[in-house]
């Protein structure tokens, strides 16, 4: 395996953080302590982790409503994210954005996004910054299978090809757009082929396989950083939970979900393969599990206890309020 033990541990920790963040978030949401919506990334962790492993703070990502995993992979502090999903005063967006709008510009994280398809044009804009300034930075748009049908996404892909921008369109095909299946909503059924038809290299990989995502992204970043223009990668990784917490998922079978948790858990798949192919052992991973759980629990507890925004905060960060 072409990875150092450190790299493998980091990748695993990132995915475990994502899982813990959403599972604990889910627990809090169900207990009524978390406001707004909670979109779980469980089952899709290898995508965010495999993609962002190739990025530095100076590269950009534009995310989606299902953005917690992307934030963690891009290096946002879990403490600050936790404060934001609890909408606390010291959160990354001071509680004004919440779960669907976590942004951390210092980390090149250009925002989760509650408008489906909103990420792609923004990522193209950041790619334009990179190209105009003559840097080798890249800009990633995370796009759901449902979002892949938006006009904004098609326009963004074409513009990126026309301007030869260092943009990478990462499609997270989790099988569903809310309660509609991809076989129904995506006419051609092949998101990668559709992206390729815009005139860019288009990969399709198993999004539950960290290494497959990593490899595709290695090629994509090399292409984009060397000025050859955009790339797209379709990652297939089925959604485990409902569209958001509280979705009863009557449109799915219990067997499908149980099978995913048993056989398509990206974290377990990673762990099994690494143990089989390297010197890392179960106890190495168990240690990371324990450490991650403690870290995330602590961050969430601290966030829950942190102060709410003050009423006067309502009127800050606008140039004029006309009240």
């Amino acid at each position, binding site marked *: 395996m072409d990875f150092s033990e450190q790299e493998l541990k980091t990748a695993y920790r990132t995915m475990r953080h994502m899982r813990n963040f959403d599972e604990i978030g889910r627990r809090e949401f169900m207990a009524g302590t978390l406001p707004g919506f909670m979109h779980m990334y469980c089952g899709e962790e290898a995508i965010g982790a495999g993609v962002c492993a190739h990025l530095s703070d100076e590269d950009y990502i534009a995310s989606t409503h299902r953005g917690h995993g992307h934030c963690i992979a891009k290096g946002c502090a879990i403490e600050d994210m936790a404060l934001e999903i609890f909408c606390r005063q010291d959160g990354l967006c001071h*509680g004004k954005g*919440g779960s669907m709008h976590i942004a951390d510009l210092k980390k090149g994280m250009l925002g989760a996004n509650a408008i489906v398809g909103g990420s792609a044009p923004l990522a193209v804009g950041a790619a334009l910054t990179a190209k105009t300034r003559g840097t080798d930075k890249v800009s990633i748009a995370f796009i759901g299978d*449902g979002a892949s049908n938006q006009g904004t996404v098609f326009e963004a892909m074409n513009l990126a090809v026309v301007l030869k921008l260092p943009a990478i369109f990462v499609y997270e095909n989790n099988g569903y*757009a*809310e309660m509609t299946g991809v076989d129904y*909503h995506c006419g051609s059924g092949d998101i990668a082929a559709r992206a390729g038809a815009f005139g860019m290299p288009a990969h399709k990989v198993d999004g539950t396989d960290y290494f497959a995502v990593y490899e595709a992204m290695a090629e994509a970043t090399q292409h984009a950083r060397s000025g050859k223009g955009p790339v797209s990668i379709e990652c297939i990784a089925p959604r485990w939970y409902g569209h958001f917490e509280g979705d009863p998922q009557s449109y799915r079978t219990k067997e499908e979900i149980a099978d995913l948790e048993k056989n398509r858990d990206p974290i377990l798949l990673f762990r099994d393969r690494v143990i089989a192919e390297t010197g890392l052992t179960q106890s190495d991973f168990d240690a990371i599990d324990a450490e991650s759980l403690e870290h995330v629990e602590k961050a969430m507890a601290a966030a829950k206890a942190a102060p709410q925004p003050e009423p006067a*905060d*309502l009127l800050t960060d606008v140039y004029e309020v006309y009240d």
Partner: protein
Amino acid sequence: MPQMTMREAINHAMRLEMRRDPEVILIGEDVAGGRGCPVDDVEAAGGVMGVTAGLFNEFGEARVIDTPITESAIMGAAAGAALTGMRPIAELMFADFFGVCFDQLYNQAAKFRYMFGGQQGAAMVVRTMIGAGMGSGPQHSQAIYPIFAHIPGLKVVLPSCAYDAKGLLIQSIRDNDPVIFCEHKMLYGDKDEVPEESYQIPLGQARVVREGSDVTVVALGRMVKLAVEAAEALEEKGISTAVIDPRTISPLDVDTILDSVEETGRVVVVDEATPMCSMASEIASMIVSDGFSSLRAPVKKVTAPHTPVPASPVLEAEYAPTAARISAAIESVYAYR
């Protein structure tokens, strides 16, 4: 008379119209739900808020049409179908998403009748969800209907109770112009006496929710019940407050408002939308222009501030007007000498 929630009343209105007129179709995201899924349990779905539940089962896939996430095409398809004689109801899940698809509405559908010399308007309804209160954040909570009212050719409906919602929606479906039908997400569960049978409420006819002789409150959408709450509380202090619900903001029933102002001379306009270029300012301006001689105090506006809607529930609670803020405004115009 049966009790219905606003959710049920809206569902019922669509059902009755779809039974009556085969050219009424429903198109939007997850209006059926379950398409292309392992279990086609569409009866349980019917939109993220369950407003269209059961319509797919009754009318089938030819008339209850789930789309990909593709708002521009939804609006355009509705406009094109309307131009060719159908009566589509397009559902835009959250009004915030108009940002993605406005062209097909305001440059296309809204202008057909005028621009094509009166040949045909777009007899379409866009049902959409508005408003703050669920902690849904800046891109899922806006009350952006004043933007629609600004555009000639669009009609804009803003029901405040289940009874009105049913009658106004049936009327909107039969109307020959494009109607934006704004459903407040915090009102879906509110119950009311609603007749089983079909009935229509004309567009452009306000409802006097409460008579009163000292102060007139004009309130929109979810603000109506808060205004009534404030008015009832002030009754004890001897202030008699009329509450008027315009029900449709375009066309706007100015006469009913002016009649009340003639009696009271004191006005508070309450709206959840932001204050600049708003319905609140428009209504205030009409009263000042056409009812100036009746006025005994400056017209007062109670609105959201000129900010996006914050995600924090603590800040969101400060954002939209409350009964307490409305009461304070009523008292201040009442006390004005």
